[in-house]
């Protein structure tokens, strides 16, 4: 009986400490360009390499990564350029980075107004504990 109470007391002490560490809100990871991505033409694709950085002391599994494309010109249609969402989830080790390649597409019907423009990209993603 006495041994059981000691074990219980130990668990009650250890459990909150462990939970506190695991429950602490995960820090947001960051997504940034690696190099330049140029040469987009109607009907074509280019690769946009981005670096995803995990500032947490735990590994994370990035489950989604989507990109919103801005319009540098009102004459170039909003849907002229799209970026494929992340196809396969991937794990980033704690306090480390991983580079992933996103596919950027320009529709074949893009007009001349879409020539020689720089399109702003806004990345967003979600991650879970692996």
């Amino acid at each position, binding site marked *: *009986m006495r041994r*059981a*109470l000691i*074990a*219980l007391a130990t*668990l*009650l002490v250890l*459990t*909150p400490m*462990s*939970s506190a560490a*695991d*429950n602490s*809100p*995960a*820090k*947001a*990871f*960051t*997504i*940034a*360009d690696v190099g*330049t*991505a*140029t*040469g*987009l*033409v*109607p*009907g*074509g694709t*280019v690769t*946009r390499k*981005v670096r995803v950085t995990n500032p947490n002391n*735990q590994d994370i599994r*990035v489950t989604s*990564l989507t990109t919103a*494309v801005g319009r540098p010109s009102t004459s170039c249609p909003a849907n002229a*350029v799209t970026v494929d969402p992340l196809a396969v989830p991937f794990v980033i080790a704690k306090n480390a980075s991983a580079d992933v390649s996103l596919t*950027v597409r*320009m529709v*074949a019907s*893009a007009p*001349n107004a*879409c*020539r*020689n*423009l*720089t*399109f*702003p*990209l*806004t*990345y*967003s*993603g*979600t*991650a*879970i*504990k692996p």
Partner: protein
Amino acid sequence: MRKRTAVIAAVAVVAIGGGVAYAAWSSTGSGSGTVSSTTSQNSSITPVSGSGLYPGVTVDAVVSINNPNDYAVKVNSIADSSSSVNGTCAAGTVTTTSATTDFSPVIAAHGTQNYTLKAKMNADASDGCKSITFTVPLNAQLVSAAS
């Protein structure tokens, strides 16, 4: 009996704690970047072959179109055209059309491709149109064939 109860209580505490920890652990990420489109460069059309015109006849006139761009292009059309005044040979004596031209071959990046037009000399062409070379301005519409 009291010992067994204590052990069960301990296990329950651990199980609950672990469940909460897993559910709370998720995060989001964000960032910004850019991607750029390229500009386009105009192609040139140059004559390759086309001879033997006489009043009322139609001959093949082959032209070459280049592609100075880093991506493939295809020709959508070459506008019908006609010759200018040439000495005493009247304007419009020779006309060209691409009505039967096969535009399916794409022009590779930095490549060239030949296309065959039809050139016709008017039946009433004057003697001033003998043995001369006609220059016909051509205007083609090209679009990206990148994939």
